């Protein structure tokens, strides 16, 4: 038995525009992203030679502590809010969460002070500073809800005291610190997402604009494509 294949469609298809000029939304988004944040800026393998101080370590240490907070927090969230009162493993996990938060704030505050003394907002980096401060303030709010949801004496006292401050300015009408359910969901769900999103935005801005040069830095005519100290051609 013979079968007849359908004749191939020989009608020429319309040319697909080169992605460099494609009007597709996806192409446009990719072009815009790459223009602002090319791979060598997003994941750099070199830094200006002036980036040579221990103060620069505290930004990445803050991020690392945030990661430990999220991981230990996920374990606590999975097991439920009362787990750490009754289980030694739960208590240890809570200790990891507690100390990673302490480290997070130590690193973050040192990072913040470092950036202040560098006047790191120079050169169109104001939004980098602003997102950093917002991340700091949002982190304080997140930590506060963590203290409120401990379901122990500490949370009883903190919620009793804090309600007055928030009620006096009207916030208490919407954010009830003595409502465990509200506090729990804010701490374990909404606020970590907010902090995480702001931190990602902050880091992307840092990568886009680069590390601020020293105050009174002198313009140089050296080619940009050299690696200094030791100076190695790129």
């Amino acid at each position: 038995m013979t079968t007849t294949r359908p004749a191939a469609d020989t009608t020429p298809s319309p040319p697909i525009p080169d992605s460099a000029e494609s009007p597709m939304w996806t192409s446009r988004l990719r072009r815009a992203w790459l223009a602002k944040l090319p791979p060598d800026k997003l994941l750099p393998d070199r830094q200006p030679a002036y980036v040579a101080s221990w103060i620069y370590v505290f930004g990445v240490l803050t991020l690392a502590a945030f990661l430990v907070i999220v991981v230990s927090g996920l374990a606590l969230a999975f097991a439920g809010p009362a787990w750490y009162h009754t289980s030694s493993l739960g208590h240890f996990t809570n200790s990891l969460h507690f100390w990673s938060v302490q480290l997070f704030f130590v690193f973050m505050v040192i990072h913040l002070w470092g950036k202040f003394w560098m006047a790191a907002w120079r050169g169109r980096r104001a939004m980098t500073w602003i997102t950093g401060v917002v991340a700091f303030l949002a982190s304080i709010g997140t930590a506060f809800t963590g203290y409120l949801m401990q379901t122990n004496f500490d949370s009883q006292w903190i919620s009793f005291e804090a309600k007055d401050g928030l009620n006096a300015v009207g916030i208490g009408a919407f954010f009830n610190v003595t409502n465990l359910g509200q506090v729990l969901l804010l701490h374990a769900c909404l606020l970590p997402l907010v902090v995480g999103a702001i931190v990602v935005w902050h880091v992307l801005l840092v990568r886009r604009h680069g590390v601020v040069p020293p105050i009174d830095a002198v313009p140089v005519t050296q080619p940009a494509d050299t690696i200094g100290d030791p100076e190695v051609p790129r």
Partner: protein
Amino acid sequence: MTTRHSKAGNGSDVALQEWRGPWRRYDIVKEGVIAVVVVSILTLLLAGIFSSPDEPQLTFQGWATSAPDNFYATAVQELAGTSESAGYGPPYNTAADGVAVGPIAPQQWFGVTHPVDPPNDFVLTPLRSQQQSADVTAALAAWDSATADQQISWASDYDSALTDAGGDLTQLAPGDYGPVPVLAQGLTDMATSGALDGVLTARGAFYQTDATPQILFLGDGSYLDDAATAAHLQGNTWGMMNETGSYPGQAWLWLYSFWYQIPTFNSDNPDDYLTSHADALIFYIMAVLSLALLLLPFIPGLRSIPRWIPIHRLIWRDYYRRQARP
């Protein structure tokens, strides 16, 4: 070649441009991995060595057992409407106007959003929810059959008499207190047995996630306050940033806590304007300071501090040393 110097805070040509000076090798992924490992190890060590605080929660049973007179007196205050929560105002009830700083009165604007009725929520409803002794049952019936004015009269008179007697029931002046003493004793007995903890938590429901009534009631007496004083957690002793035991607390709230240490906001006279409005005023101060921190790059003077105090010369000492070379 021109050598224009940058102006901290005003932007600079160098800060605006792509860096054209010397570079150094930098492995961002390796740095990130090392940071995660170091912080993880540090956290494990701190958690393993120092553990973490977890003081058990206070209960109404503990309160009624260790301080029955205070619990009894607080129950009377709830009926009389003289407790802190009974006279609080928004967002719990309309017993007071709420704090206003000049025309700014958000506590009043938003009104009652978490209604709490202390006489009923803390005393009468819990008593009615359980099978009671004959005298308590009769006292509840007497209370229910009385007018509102009569109820307040009984409770207020008894509250005053109890205060005058220093809480000592044997020194109580005789008077018409109606069913109030029996109701207060009934609630004290209920708390001592542990039943009140369950009743206040569940409030007739199976699931319950809002602890507002319990926290307010607990705070109306001296039990919670005394425990906080013993743990150095009072607001006027930096309690906002302290933690139970010897653990670090919310140290990042030091500036917020600082204002509460100033006598202006913490006087012995509760009618003093700054003291009675301290919560709102301090919040507004902190809001302004936070806004200033946020907008620092745009505030003349403040943004120039890093230039005036040259700590940056330590941070970039290698760079400046190279610049100084002939």
